């Protein structure tokens, strides 16, 4: 079986470097794309050089208190993101990893983020990891960390968060899980956590949240000033380099550029005909799709579920209690949506649709996602009922572009945007009667 297409960390770095050079020569892109790629490259580079710098590497799932890792000089490899960046650098890496994963007996119906990891680990192309960290949110697939840890002799630690986190006892329990995590990390690294350093990191992380919310407000402007190449900018800063100055600098730059674009009347697309919300993840499996939608339909992506903060996101309750803040932050933070009631998610997305003046929603029904599969219809119905926003459901795979043909997607999008344009709600929203 060929392993050539699967990316190693060095190839990812080389690919990102090439992309960074490439965007400098491409006209019409946002300036912040350079900062975006710099954040991603820095992230990957830190992992690549961790060993020679005497740092520890933890492969982890979503909803980790990465600030604790940052404060303890542990470099995180976010397994989901690894699949996303593989798709950016070389689309054929993921399908090959899936084949390899299938050869180990892993069924094709579990999450592709984890199948990609399974395949890369089996082929020896996963970044060397000292330990695995995972948490209950967002789904059952985190069991894979324990399974793969057992298979490859890598110690792992799981953080348990109740599905119902809002009670006092659940929050206390969750905070206690962080303490247990710290004990695990101290045992593994031989280092003690410096709580003062943690407070600083958490404070910077909170600054990132504030910037994120400012950016959201700017992006909700009509017409939308944010182009697709920087769409996931906030998510990338918050999920990859939380608590870092680099993350803050990048988001500050992005915020300023968006302000400037609004002041100058520069928008993502000249003729903004549709404003789109992605009610699950954006199309990681096809990085060109959002640009295509803009070009063909004048459909601008304005928001998504993954970068949604619940409530007013003021999670810094007590600067002297970093663990308590982080615990509270988790239940509000982007990406956590999936690990909660579908009805709750639907209500949040309806609110988001109002704020961002959304015309249509796209739900990527990821074949391997069980949390998504059974709340897609609830979100669709609630959006229609509450804000008259119709939803296009695309049956796809979160990472593997070979799951569904581009022609099929385009055909469905043709139908969807035509339907939107003639709909009463759309015409009313845009005063086109």
């Amino acid at each position: 079986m060929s392993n050539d297409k699967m990316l190693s960390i060095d190839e990812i770095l080389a690919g990102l470097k090439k992309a960074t050079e490439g965007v400098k020569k491409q006209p019409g892109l946002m300036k912040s794309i350079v900062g975006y790629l710099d954040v991603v490259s820095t992230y990957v580079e830190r992992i690549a050089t961790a060993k020679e710098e005497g740092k520890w590497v933890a492969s982890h799932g979503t909803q980790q208190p990465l600030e604790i890792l940052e404060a303890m000089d542990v470099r995180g490899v976010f397994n989901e993101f690894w699949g996303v960046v593989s798709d950016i650098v070389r689309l054929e890496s993921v399908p090959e990893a899936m084949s390899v994963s299938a050869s180990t007996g892993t069924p094709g119906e579990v999450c592709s983020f984890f199948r990609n990891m399974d395949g890369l680990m089996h082929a020896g192309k996963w970044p060397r990891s000292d330990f695995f960290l995972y948490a209950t949110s967002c789904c059952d697939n985190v069991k894979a960390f324990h399974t793969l840890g057992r298979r490859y002799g890598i110690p792992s630690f799981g953080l348990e968060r109740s599905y119902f986190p809002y009670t006092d006892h659940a929050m206390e329990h969750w905070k206690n899980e962080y303490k247990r995590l710290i004990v695990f990390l101290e045992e593994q690294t031989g280092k003690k956590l410096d709580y003062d350093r943690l407070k600083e990191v958490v404070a910077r992380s909170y600054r990132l949240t504030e910037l994120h919310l400012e950016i959201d407000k700017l992006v909700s402007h009509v017409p939308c000033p944010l182009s697709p190449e920087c769409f996931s900018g906030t998510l990338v800063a918050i999920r990859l380099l939380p608590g870092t100055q680099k993350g803050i600098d990048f988001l500050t730059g992005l915020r300023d550029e968006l302000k400037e674009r609004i002041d100058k009347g520069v928008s993502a697309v000249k003729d903004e005909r549709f404003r789109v919300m992605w009610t699950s993840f954006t199309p990681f499996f096809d990085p060109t799709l959002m640009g295509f939608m803009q070009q063909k339909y004048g459909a601008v992506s304005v928001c998504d579920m993954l970068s949604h903060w619940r409530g007013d996101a003021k999670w810094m309750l007590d600067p002297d209690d970093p663990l308590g803040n982080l615990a509270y932050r988790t239940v509000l933070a982007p990406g956590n949506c999936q690990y909660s009631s579908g009805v709750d998610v639907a209500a949040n997305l309806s609110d988001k649709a109002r704020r961002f003046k959304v015309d249509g929603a796209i739900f990527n029904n990821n074949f391997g996602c069980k949390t998504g599969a059974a709340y897609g219809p609830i979100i669709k119905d609630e959006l229609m009922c509450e804000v008259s926003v119709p939803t296009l459901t695309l049956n796809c795979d979160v990472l593997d572009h070979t799951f569904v043909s581009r022609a099929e997607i385009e055909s469905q999008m043709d139908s969807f945007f035509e339907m939107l344009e003639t709909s009463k709600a759309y015409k009313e929203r845009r005063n086109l009667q």
Partner: protein
Amino acid sequence: MAVVGIDLGSQNTKAVILEGDEILGGASLETGESAETEARMAVQEALRQTGLKREDLKAAVATGPLSVPVTKAVNIAALKQRSAASCIATGAYFRFPQARTVLYVGADSSMAIRLSGDGQVEDSVKNERCAVSSGALLDIVSRMLEIPVAEMGAMSLQATAPQTLSSRCVVFAEGEILSFIHKNPPVPVPDVLAGVNQCIADGLWGMVQRMGVPSELLICGGVARNVGIVKAIEAHLGKPALVPKQPQYVRALGAAVFARQMEREGRASC
């Protein structure tokens, strides 16, 4: 002023010529390797039936999964493309304005569409990844049992004890059907066919349900010629469905209606 609608399906290419409210003629050819050739030939055959010349066609609209490459090939001054859902909805509404949900069942895909009172698409859903809710399973069964697809519907109505298929996957369903016909004694063919129809109809009904319980359901697409499947869907619906004559032409007809609109609005010059 005559116009033409062209539907480039994965199995058949259809053309319908419309003048005012009158359908002058239509043609259907098997889609071959070149969608452009098929499109041109389908239009030619439709012209031949109507006695019109190509110059008489003032506008054209193409639709269907293969419509992308044909824009230049069909040598008609004004040619646009419209989405499959819109064409199905428009064609259905043209035939039966009272239809509120349209179920299109094609060779390898199907679609359920909810219409507004004036024939606009309100919502639509396609069959999910598996082709079992489409004509694909019928083609397989036809080859296995060596019965022409066109005869399977009528034959299925002779069933006395329909054989249920447990699989919702075309590949596994094929294996199951093999086991039926090799049983001792074998399951009678009409019972197998009725079971296949039920399996397809159940999947389609799920799609219809997603559009909401319809007051009037119209069934179209090539598979709507299978009277057994129509009956199985009607059993879910609890009343007769609307089935246009020559239901395989509905999408092409819808495309022709768009061409007519284009022509009337003066957008047919380019």
